[in-house]
């Protein structure tokens, strides 16, 4: 069974696949948001339903749906061709009680932001129709509060890694994965009292720091390998890790959001549109600056780029991002991922060589 998804609670869960999905609305509708990480291993059925040239994460998710191991409700943020086709195939082939495709614009300003705002409103109405439960201002405020706490913990963890906190590879990925699979209350109770050390940038003692940038990792195997080869992961710039938090952490000051339902939905739309941009957004300058900042703040000596195979969003952006990082004197290694980690030997050879070069 895929972690976080069980047959008992399938009906009260809502699955999602892209970080531009406003999870607070799912929570306010009385559903438990659960990110799909896909069925591990072969994806023959999904390959046949889609096409082998589609992103392997998308195919792994469809395989999970075809295997009957996904929530009854699914919300697809239509951020790329792959996820739009996943929505199609899901609606056509999987036994889902509810599917919804959101419009996700590429720019965060002007009309594009208004379009996303509309899409958020339509999602809320559709979820009310599905659950029979009204999404109230109170419910939204509660969900936003819980999610801010989760995002605050994750942001603290990411910042600690940049400062030098160096957990084992699998553990560093686990906290982010838990944030996307567990109900907020469970996540908070598990992690809120954890400390992340007081490392200082550039002061990590046990390895050459590297920044990882990409989409998603199927497992922590690469991170373990980096540790084995004398490296230390200083930041995970992935949509399933460091880029996942969307809300401003709670600082104890006045809540930054309005009181009424529509105002809260607009607040969420703005928050998600202004999050650390994914390569699909046309805000590459901001994204490139974000990666460079991670490198500088952490004292990283290299960057490992881990785009998913066939991910157009990342692959079109990669040459420019790499040029900018190279220009800063930071060497890089590109490891295109098939989201299965089944080429471990080859990957290890390349990581070893890269670490030696650093």
């Amino acid at each position, binding site marked *: 069974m895929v972690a976080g998804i069980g047959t008992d609670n399938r009906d009260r869960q809502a699955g999602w696949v892209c970080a531009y999905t406003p999870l607070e609305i799912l929570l306010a509708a009385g559903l438990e948001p659960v990110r799909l990480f896909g069925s591990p291993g072969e994806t023959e059925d999904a390959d*046949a*339903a*889609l*096409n082998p*040239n*589609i*992103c392997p994460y998308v195919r792994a998710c469809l395989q999970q749906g075809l295997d009957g191991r996904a929530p009854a409700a699914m919300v697809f943020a*239509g951020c*790329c*061709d*792959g996820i*739009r*086709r996943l*929505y*199609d*195939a899901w*609606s*056509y082939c999987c036994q889902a009680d509810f599917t919804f*495709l959101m*419009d996700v*614009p*590429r*720019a965060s300003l*002007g*009309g*594009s932001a*208004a*379009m996303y705002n*509309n*899409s958020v409103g*339509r999602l809320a109405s559709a979820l009310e129709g599905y659950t029979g439960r009204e999404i109230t201002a109170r419910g939204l405020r509660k969900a936003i509060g819980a999610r801010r706490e989760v995002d605050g913990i994750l942001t603290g963890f990411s910042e600690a890694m940049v400062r030098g906190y160096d957990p084992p590879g699998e553990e560093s990925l686990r906290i982010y994965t838990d944030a996307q699979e567990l109900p907020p209350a469970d996540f908070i109770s598990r992690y809120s009292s954890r400390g992340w050390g007081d490392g200082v940038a550039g002061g990590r003692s046990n390895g050459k720091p590297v920044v990882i940038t990409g989409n998603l990792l199927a497992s922590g195997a690469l991170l373990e390998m980096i540790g084995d080869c004398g490296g230390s992961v200083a930041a995970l710039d992935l949509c399933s890790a460091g880029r996942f938090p969307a809300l401003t952490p709670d600082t104890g000051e006045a809540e930054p959001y309005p009181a009424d339902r529509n105002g809260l939905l607009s607040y969420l739309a703005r928050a998600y549109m202004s999050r650390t941009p994914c390569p*699909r957004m*046309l805000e*590459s300058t901001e994204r490139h600056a974000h990666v460079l900042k991670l490198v500088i703040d952490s004292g990283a000596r290299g960057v490992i780029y881990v785009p998913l*195979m*066939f991910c*157009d*969003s990342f*692959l*079109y*952006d*990669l*040459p*420019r991002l*790499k*040029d900018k990082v190279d220009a800063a004197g930071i060497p890089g290694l590109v490891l*295109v991922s098939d989201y299965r980690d089944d080429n471990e030997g080859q990957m290890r050879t390349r990581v070893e060589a890269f670490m030696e070069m650093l």
Partner: protein
Amino acid sequence: MALTDELVERFKASISPELMRSRWPWLVALALSRSPMDRPSLRADRVSSRFMLESTRDAYLGRRPVVWSSLLFPSELIHGTGNIAFFPEIAAAKAASVGLSRRFLDAAEAAGFSQDLCSFHRVLIGAATEDLLPHPDLLVSSSQPCDSSPLSFEFLADYYGVEHLTADVPNENSSVGELEILAGELRRVALALDSLDGATGGNTGGLEERMRDAVELSNRARRFALEVERERKRVPSPLDGWNAMGHLAVLAMMPGTLAGASFYAALAGELKDDAYAGLPGKEKHRLLWMHLKPYFPSELETFLHEKGAVIVCEEYNRCFWGEMDPDRPFDSLAAKAAGHFSAGTAERRAAEMVRLAEEYEVDGAVHFSHRGCRQSCGSAQQVREELARVGVRTLILDGECLDPREHRDGQIRTRLEAFLETLDNPQTVGSAP
């Protein structure tokens, strides 16, 4: 190698940024296009060839501001603001048709672009990095039909140091509110286009008035294009779809121009003309062709002719929008952009293909699954199943549009041949090899 082939190869090798920006190759090309030596199979093609040659020449010579546009961005906005529209995806297909795509693919890969990306965009990026394309003053793109245009244009805008504006087109289940937002975005783009130097193009009217003119011209082209489509529904078909796929360039680039209306008027008149000889040979199979075709030289066209297989309609090469209201140009153009089947789900696309299959009375369909196209390949199975429900068999043919290194002519012919044989056997409805 024959002497002419060698001369062609030497000419291709000599193509340089300086050559493309000098006047003489354009003088020669235009003179050839007007001479009796140039005998296109359709007289209407003379209209489009001349428009494209002159427009491309003007772009290279920098006679007016040059606006690069993605395939489905409404061209009326660019023509209405008096700028030169340059469609690099179409230029990429043209480069492949004259055997230049390999060179540009190599250049794009050397610049770090993965072979997994769409070859249309790798070719145009490669040509840009060799400085063989006209320099843009602005880039405009839309989010349909696929992710590649806005993403590759973002790189190119950075490369040329100019602005890139993109229009997010909502999916078909979106509300009227989203179309209003898109109309507002198109107005914003039009204002940016209008502010480029020399953008009035000799027309001193206000923006609304010029957009009205462009929309009226587009409507005129559309009315003639619909006449062409009516003629093409005849049995046997009067037009070969393999070549007609080249008219996608007209459909993308020329709405909003007088030449666009003239092209479709000429084509409609030609197809109705009793003197028009139509297609040679017997029409044995009527095919719907989905997505695009290999643009580099291949034997597939001849092969289809030999088998009596006629492409009677093409997914992309048809009028997908309704009559527009010239008094509300931006609302109309927003509706046009959102009216394309690619702005939405596979269900919408499949329904469109079923309608086409029925209207054109096809007995088979081919989905050409271009290797780098997630948008199209990802819904091929669903389209095939929906076509099967109405008794139309579909062949999903994996292939490449612009990268000849990935093309297997023999394999494709074998699969097509087997498919055409199944069309002769009515007992196997819905299946395909």
